[in-house]
């Protein structure tokens, strides 16, 4: 135990000296600040900013309704289409109402992205406005209840956590292991009576401490608290164990830091993207469960956004622990063989 602690403290001291800790703390901070800029909660954030062409003859009831709804729609009159495009690109307006060439006499909405929350908001606002002007009753669907709770900060939290776990597991740890191999520091440590397993456990502690520190900071900054705290901690520990062991194993496959970073990126992106984007694509939803990263992402999403509990996710937890144990054993095997040392 004494040797494990000594080695773990040495690893943490190295992580401090080579600025790994700064990187790990910077990422949550950066994510938090960026999301705060996106996720505006002030009153102005709910106003739709619409551009109207000065030369276009809008139906009088449209301009009248828009003017009357000044609390939800802000109008900017634009000289020509070019000016409108520039305002759109600069995010100064959300959309432009212009003539629809495909259906003369009706209007088209020009936006930056068709599939965006802003576009939905504009269409909803104008639909409500039209119904009010025509004196019709409310829509069949009068509200949207989301299974995933919270604002964009909370909704993207599982993705950020997965990104941090994989960054530490696939980029930072393999590079650190490979560096110790490259500089023959691991062999120097093995000139002392430490056991190979002690060195491996110390590296696991390093990975888990880095991951847990980053996740903790993300939670503290966003003031997020899962309903099932114990289940959440259990998954963070299982995930950090699994991907730290995975990273150590990748480090053993490389002779030097440069190749470890390359290999790390090769593993990082295919583990991150399919899982993190599985919500927006049916094909990715089919592929993602084949990846171990999904076994962490899915439960985190369920616990953080759907108030899920571990009872329905025991398979994922056992999967992570077993995969981590297998990677740990493979690392031990390669270390005993002095693989690429």
């Amino acid at each position, binding site marked *: 135990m004494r040797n494990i602690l*000594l080695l773990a403290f*040495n690893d943490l001291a190295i992580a401090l000296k080579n600025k790994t800790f700064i990187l790990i703390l910077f990422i949550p901070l950066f994510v938090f600040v960026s999301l705060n800029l996106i996720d505006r909660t002030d009153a102005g954030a709910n106003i739709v900013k619409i551009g109207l062409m000065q030369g276009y003859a809008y139906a009088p009831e449209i301009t009248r309704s828009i003017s009357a709804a000044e609390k939800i729609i802000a109008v900017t009159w634009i000289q020509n289409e070019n000016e409108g495009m520039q305002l759109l690109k600069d995010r100064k307006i959300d959309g432009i109402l212009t003539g629809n060439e495909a259906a003369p006499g009706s209007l088209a909405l020009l936006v930056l992205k068709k599939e965006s929350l802003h576009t939905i908001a504009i269409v909803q606002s104008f639909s409500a406005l039209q119904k009010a002007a025509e004196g019709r009753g409310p829509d069949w669907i009068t509200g949207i209840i989301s299974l995933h709770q919270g604002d964009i900060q909370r909704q993207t939290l599982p993705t950020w956590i997965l990104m941090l776990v994989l960054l530490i597991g696939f980029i930072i740890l393999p590079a650190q292991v490979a560096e110790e191999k490259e500089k023959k*520091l691991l062999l120097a440590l*093995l*000139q002392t009576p430490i056991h190979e397993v002690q060195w491996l456990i110390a590296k696991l502690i390093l990975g888990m401490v880095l991951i847990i520190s980053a996740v903790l900071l993300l939670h503290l900054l966003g003031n997020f608290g899962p309903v099932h705290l114990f289940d959440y901690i259990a998954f963070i520990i299982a995930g950090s164990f699994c991907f730290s062991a995975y990273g150590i194993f990748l480090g053993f496959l490389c002779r030097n830091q440069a190749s470890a970073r390359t290999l790390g990126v090769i593993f990082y992106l295919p583990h991150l993207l399919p899982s993190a984007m599985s919500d927006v694509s049916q094909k990715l939803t089919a592929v993602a469960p084949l990846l171990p990263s999904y076994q962490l992402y899915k439960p985190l999403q369920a616990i953080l956004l759907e108030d899920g509990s571990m009872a329905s996710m025991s398979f994922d937890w056992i999967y992570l622990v077993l995969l981590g144990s297998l990677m740990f054993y493979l690392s031990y095997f390669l270390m005993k063989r002095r693989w690429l040392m």
Partner: protein
Amino acid sequence: MQLEIRNLAKLYDEKRGLAPTSFDVGKGELIAIVGHNGAGKSTLLKMLASWILPDGGSVKFDGIDLKNRTAVVRKVGFIPEVPNLFDFFSVEYNLKLFAALSQTPFQRVEEILNEFNLIPFRKSKVQALSKGLKQRVNIGRALLSNPSVLLLDEPTSGLDFEMTRETYRLMSAMHGDGKTIIFTSHRPEEIKNLATRIMLLHEGKLIFDGSPEEYFRSESHEKLYAW
């Protein structure tokens, strides 16, 4: 015998590595292993230090099999050609870390710092030291647990004349303290007054094993320059 080496072998290819080799080493010997690059000198030493695993054969230190690494490392100190220290940290940190891992009292660190004239550099980061000083720290680290056998791989490689002389003086002093020393060298002339035994390796085979006097009288010495 302090070291019993039987059919120790590691083959990378036909001409590289070490063919099955057997020899014994008595307590207090100072053995120079000479030969060209790729002769198998470093491979032999690295196998004795458990840095690489042999393809076959056995090694016993005071009767303990090399496979029992954690027991053997207390008896053997290995000093590689390139110092392998934690560059970010100070000389003192490096020595204390390895002392703690070897369960050696920190008093021994003070002794090593004194013995190797490292007191003025104790707080210096290793990365700021000259190669000669790094090598001194490296040798000091290997001596922390007071091993009875020291293995030095090309200890004077890259050192200037002054530092080479200093390293040989240190080796001589350690030998005087009763330690068994095995080291590798390219330059037999330099160590003829130092070694008590010379072994010549060529293309992975041990082709001479005897005293320095016998070696310098033998054809092997002449051949070394002809190969």
